């Protein structure tokens, strides 16, 4: 973690080989990591905010990604928890299940500057070479390092 800054993600926020069959389960497992890392103060409240967003429109996207996300009063810092799944988890994308799941949290009412890092992450998700690097990573640390290196303001 850079000094004086809270990183967008860390190895403890990454699960390689997520054991989940549903998007709800996958989201919960990732949210538990956020709680353990002190990024989320109350898991049920945060999951409810994510579910409300997910109910409006699926967050599965072409290219095998799912991006459940919410702005929430229960989030302390802009954070992404990442799960990889060989089998895939259905997030409603038309081209198949998500092999990369990004659970994104932003504090409610956070100022613009804090959200720029999430905008930078979102832009990277469009690129297949970036997604491929993450899919092929074999450890949580490698994934966290890729995010740190590739997602910059």
């Amino acid at each position: 973690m850079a000094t004086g800054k809270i990183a967008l993600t860390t190895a403890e926020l990454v699960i390689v080989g997520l054991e989940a069959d549903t998007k709800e389960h996958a989201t919960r497992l990732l949210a538990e990591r956020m709680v353990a890392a002190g990024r989320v103060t109350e898991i049920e409240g945060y999951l409810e905010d994510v579910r409300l967003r997910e109910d409006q429109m699926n967050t599965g996207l072409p290219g095998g990604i799912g991006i459940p996300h919410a702005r929430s009063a229960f989030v302390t810092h802009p954070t992404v928890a990442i799960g990889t799944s060989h089998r895939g988890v259905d997030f409603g994308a038309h081209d198949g299940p998500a092999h990369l799941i990004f659970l994104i949290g932003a504090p409610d009412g956070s100022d613009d500057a804090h959200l720029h890092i999430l905008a930078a992450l979102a832009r990277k998700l469009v690129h297949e070479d970036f997604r491929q690097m993450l899919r092929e990573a074999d450890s949580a640390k490698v994934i966290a390092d890729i995010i740190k290196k590739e997602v910059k303001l």
Partner: protein
Amino acid sequence: MRIVAVTSCITGIAHTYMAAEALEQAAKKLGHDITVETQGSAGSTAMPKATIDAADFCLFANDLDVKDIARFAGKPFVHVSVSTVLNDAASVLADCIAAFSAGALARVDAVPSSESATAVSTPSGKKKRGFFSRLFG
């Protein structure tokens, strides 16, 4: 072709920026100029008036109302959902360019009833099965 685009989504932290990046990459691939204004939560910088003036048409990829839509008055436009762009930005751009070239795009109202995309409607009376159903369906 010179294109100006606006993106926005419900939460304003992910799809807005993904759609902007997808449109920029697709335009580069197809050899067109595009300027995208992201109307998300990480601040929104209005694009210069000169950029709008120089554009052939506008692409609104918005799930929320376009902010200050009066800036685009008179420009031919297409309005799609953010998810349409995320599913296949290159096809959306190609279809928009074909429709623009065919003179099939409506123009943004000169005097919108409010400063919102509710003044924006799909081009009426010009429905073509396939193309418009993909863009507007």
